[in-house]
């Protein structure tokens, strides 16, 4: 058992960056070379006036998509981790049960519904998307930060305390490093969901990688749909595989389990 595990680990270690590189390269190719694939798309949609989505270049769409997801991720990570830390401290303990319940209950809210509810309050455009992404993306991060911090072995925390580590030292040197893999998993979930939800943002007037799909569906142009879908899928796979590498590195650095 341990032997085969070790072998598997070695195999993985030899090329941890393989998948991100493959997906990233494909994403790059699809963004840069979309226009030159015109004959292919012409074959799919022989009758359409235009077969390459032309309202904006794909790298611009990709940039906007990444920007929206990136801003939302940055804000949610900061707020989510801080909130998770705050309610697991003694002083914020009163809020722990409610926040814990809310974080798990919030997973029930469908992202579409959250996006749709943000529009009446915030209007059309990029802002409601960012806010919806932040609200929705916050929950997995808070939940996993809570779980991660709570799952740190009480004996270890007692030991840290008893050795004379201050609360801040314990948090930074012991609790956070030990909770990091779980927190990172939460961030991964959050970002994966957000990439998908941001694409839906095209329906509320944001211009990003969801736009070719939506306008393709509206105009019955399959070529647009494929272009958008392919690029988003590649983006999601690239980001996800990057997280996979990060998580693996973190785990091997912690060398727990």
């Amino acid at each position, binding site marked *: 058992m341990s032997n085969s595990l070790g072998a598997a680990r070695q195999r993985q270690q030899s090329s941890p960056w393989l998948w991100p590189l493959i997906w990233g390269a494909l994403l790059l190719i699809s963004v840069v070379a979309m226009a030159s694939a015109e004959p292919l798309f012409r074959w799919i949609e022989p009758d359409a006036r235009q077969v390459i989505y032309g309202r904006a270049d794909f790298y611009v769409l990709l940039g906007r998509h990444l920007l929206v997801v990136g801003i939302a991720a940055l804000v949610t990570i900061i707020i989510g981790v801080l909130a998770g830390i705050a309610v697991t401290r003694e002083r914020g303990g009163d809020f722990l*049960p*409610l926040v814990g319940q809310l974080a798990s209950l919030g997973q029930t809210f*469908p992202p579409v*519904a959250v996006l749709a509810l943000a529009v009446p309050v915030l209007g059309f455009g990029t802002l409601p998307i960012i806010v919806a992404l932040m609200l929705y993306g916050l929950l997995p991060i808070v939940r996993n930060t809570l779980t991660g911090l709570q799952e740190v072995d009480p004996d270890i925390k007692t030991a840290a305390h008893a050795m004379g580590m201050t609360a801040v030292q314990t948090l930074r040197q012991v609790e956070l490093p030990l909770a990091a893999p779980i927190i990172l998993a939460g961030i991964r979930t959050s970002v994966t969901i957000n990439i998908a939800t941001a*694409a839906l943002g095209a329906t509320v007037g944001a211009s990003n990688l969801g736009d070719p799909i939506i306008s393709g569906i509206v105009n019955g142009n399959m070529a647009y749909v494929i272009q958008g879908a392919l690029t988003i899928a590649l983006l999601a796979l690239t980001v996800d595989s990057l997280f996979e590498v990060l998580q693996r590195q973190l785990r091997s650095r912690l060398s727990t389990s």
Partner: protein
Amino acid sequence: MSLLDALPTPRLRWGRLHPNIVLVSLSLIMLAAFWLLDVVSMAPNRIVLGTGHSALEAFGWPGALLATLLIATVGIFACQPSQRHYRALLATIVLLMALMPVGLIASSYLLIDPELPQARLGLGAAYWVVLFVLLLCLIEIRLRLNLTRLWPTLLLSGVALLWWLCATFWLDSLALVQEFKARDQQFVRAIGQHIRLVGIAVSISVVMGLSLAMLMRRYERLQKGAFAVLNFLQTIPSLALFGLLLAPLAWLAANVPFLDRIGVSGIGTTPALIALVAYSLLPMVRNTYTALEEVSPDTLEAAKGMGMRAGQRFWQVRLPLALPVLLEGVRITTVQAIGLTAVAALIGAGGLGTFIFQGLGQAAMDMVLLGALPILMLALMVDAGLGALAEALRPGGIR
């Protein structure tokens, strides 16, 4: 003895005299929202954006004062938490929720000009915030009073019934109600479609997920491959997966007449179902697999030692013990499918998502709400229902 048993738990620490900071802050948030944000908005017709109205304008002095008093009561009771005060708090909060539609009736009398039959009342930001915070209060009180989920569910059902009554008989001017009345048959059909799609997709993935998980337990090689594929599918954004299914299915439908005849097409139910099942499989398989694997080897060994045959061990020991985790998988799958089905409306699969996207297209926010709110409620109801079922099935309530 475990070292931590000796530590005071936070629950013990806040004794009788410490205020419940959570409820106090929630009450303050409600007060701030109530007075600073618009309570309702009024629009002369469907498309024009409404103008916001404050609490004073909407309810008049007496109404605004009553609401303020009730919200303040929450904060005051929370300063001296005790079993009795928590019960009083519960009553206050339910009362507040019950009064919310009454407030709307009042403001429709105060604000709406009878000359304008098209005029409609929209819920303002304050209404949403207060409603949301009241729900938070309910959760907090449930946790503090150690109530089961049943009680709040019953109370909320009562409140919902009251709202429904008010909406049917006295709230014609509420935008949501008007939106509903304009397309009530469409609405009922959409809910039916939505539930049917979710039901079919979940049933298929439960059957497939169970069989796949069982196969994976037998063939280890399959396990790695299948999880890799399912993870891959889960990573692809829903919109992209729907999009990627559109083109090939449309091509198939156009070129293989048989498939066209049985209903396969690029747009509509087929791609929606395929995508829904593809997404649903991962949580289903993962939970089934872990559920079956996690049954304690000691228990199984004991069963074997007592002379139970393989089939008996599976049906009488492994499956009953795995059932709660398995149901958890069904719960996650269903809740996820309810949300994804909404997206499927984009490719013409129907369902409540239709209202969302049509509403967004027409900039008719009330129509968006008409789609989004039932989806939310559906998800919450399934979540609560299946959660309670899993809890009930857990033998002796182990946890």
